[in-house]
């Protein structure tokens, strides 16, 4: 069986499993939905109070916010196995079983669960993007849609990579994983607003070290068709999402180093 077919089979099983517990799925999904609504409402409150954000309109900021929420939700949807790696596989020693199977660990963990409750963030994210698109009267052309799709694909790779890095940390410690929340949840918060409002050090960090802005701010500036106050070129903005895929490549490399030094806790 090919890897893709196997992944689909894993995910189909996971879906069927989750649909057995509908109430618990609905509860968790509505919690995610609530958080997303609170986030966009918080942005609205600030616009209502202050009028504008150094030249950016509410619809533009909503576009940033919706995109990053949808992207993060898709990344989380696919990477649940990595997200819960420490508790489910390392503490229990169950990772040994994965290592014994003749397939890559990345594939098996990606197939661990297609966590449906993430839809609670994905759906409002998409609704916000569509509404912002309409409110801004952006033309619906192939260039814009294609670039947004590329940015979101790069973003899914980016957030998937963060989850892989978080799981890799479990080979050393299963504590203080909370630090990774800075980059995941903190990343969503950060990317919900235009990059120029942040301090220079934050901007550099989120461009060159952790390329969050490359899958959010830069390509979206091109989609919105506005000039970047930071002065980047269109070519850079269009190519930036590729950094998300490169980041995933690095993360998987680090993961494989971690796997090599893994010692089981099981008996």
């Amino acid at each position, binding site marked *: 069986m090919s890897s893709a077919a196997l992944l689909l089979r894993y995910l189909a099983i996971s879906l069927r499993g989750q649909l057995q517990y509908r109430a*618990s799925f609905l*509860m*968790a999904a*509505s*919690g*995610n939905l*609530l*958080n997303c609504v*609170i986030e966009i*409402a*918080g942005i609205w*409150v*600030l616009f*209502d*109070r*202050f*009028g*504008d*954000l*150094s030249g950016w309109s509410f619809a533009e900021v909503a576009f940033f916010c919706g995109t990053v929420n949808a992207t993060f939700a898709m990344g989380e949807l696919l990477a649940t196995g990595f997200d819960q790696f420490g508790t489910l596989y390392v503490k229990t020693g169950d990772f040994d079983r994965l290592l014994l199977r003749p397939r890559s660990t990345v594939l098996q963990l990606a197939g661990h669960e297609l966590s449906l409750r993430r839809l609670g963030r994905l759906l409002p994210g998409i609704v916000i993007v569509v509404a912002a698109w309409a409110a801004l009267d952006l033309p619906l052309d192939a260039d814009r849609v294609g670039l947004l799709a590329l940015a979101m694909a790069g973003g899914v790779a980016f957030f998937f990579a963060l989850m892989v890095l978080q799981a890799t940390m479990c080979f050393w410690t299963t*504590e*203080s*994983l*909370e*630090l990774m*929340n*800075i980059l995941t949840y*903190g990343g969503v*918060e*950060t990317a919900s*607003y235009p990059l120029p*409002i*942040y*301090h220079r050090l*934050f901007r550099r960090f989120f461009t060159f070290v952790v390329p969050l802005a490359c899958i959010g701010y830069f390509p979206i500036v091109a989609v919105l068709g506005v000039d970047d106050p930071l002065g980047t070129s269109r070519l850079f903005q269009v190519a930036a999402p590729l950094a998300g895929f490169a980041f995933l490549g690095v993360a998987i490399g680090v993961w494989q180093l971690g796997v090599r030094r893994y010692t089981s806790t099981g008996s």
Partner: protein
Amino acid sequence: MSPDIRPLVAVVSARYRTLLQYRAAAFAGFATQLFWGSIRLMILAAFFAATTEPQPMDLPQIVAYVWLGQALLGMLPWNVDADFREQVRDGTVAYDLLRPLDLYSYWFGRTLAFRVAAPTLRGIPMVLFSMVLLPLVGLGDWALIPPAHAVAFAGFVASLVLAAMLATAITLLAHISLLWTISGVGMDRVLTGLVTVFSGLTVPLPLFPDWLQPFLNWQPFRGLADVPYRIYSGNIPSAEIAGELVFVFVWTIALVLLGRLILLRGVRRMVVQGG
């Protein structure tokens, strides 16, 4: 209720000392909150920069609001105590019924320790960082200002004590609801949403639209954060401090009474898990 308060003091102090053991988690929490605080500050300052008309808060007051919010985050009743949830799930909660203590008071003591432990570990470094270190490295504009005046400081301390009590009463309502729902996952999420928005943690409450202010001013969650932080920065004038303290106190008493009432019914119909 037993007139002897010593067992309760022992409960609070034992639980508090247990929770102080988790230092690595505290460091991770500190770093996380530092990051959140910085991002929130930059967002609010960017909004504030463009404004020309007078706002209900000035920038140093907003900065103080954000840093105090990060320092005292653990005190907000945004989650349930995982140990308590475990007790309900495996049935050991039944032992608590056998103790020669008033059940609500006993749980109140435990929960108070849970709510107060996190801010002492995370809050003190956060205050030192934002008040002392930031001005030293030339970021004085982003620093936590000292309390506006002596009365503001006294009012802040008093409102903080009340906020801890209020937070405990709210957390306890969530704990008691576990007797019905057991898992508490949904409860946690709704509680987090309510608390972060209506305490002022997401956006300082005075910045909400004016037409929402009458509602925001009367709901209990503002006693958790909005009241103490604004007393601290002098945004609430000295003359109004006493009234605000009474406001928080009345809500606390009301929620304690509600908790007692629900607990009474919960115990009557409790089915203990496990064998």
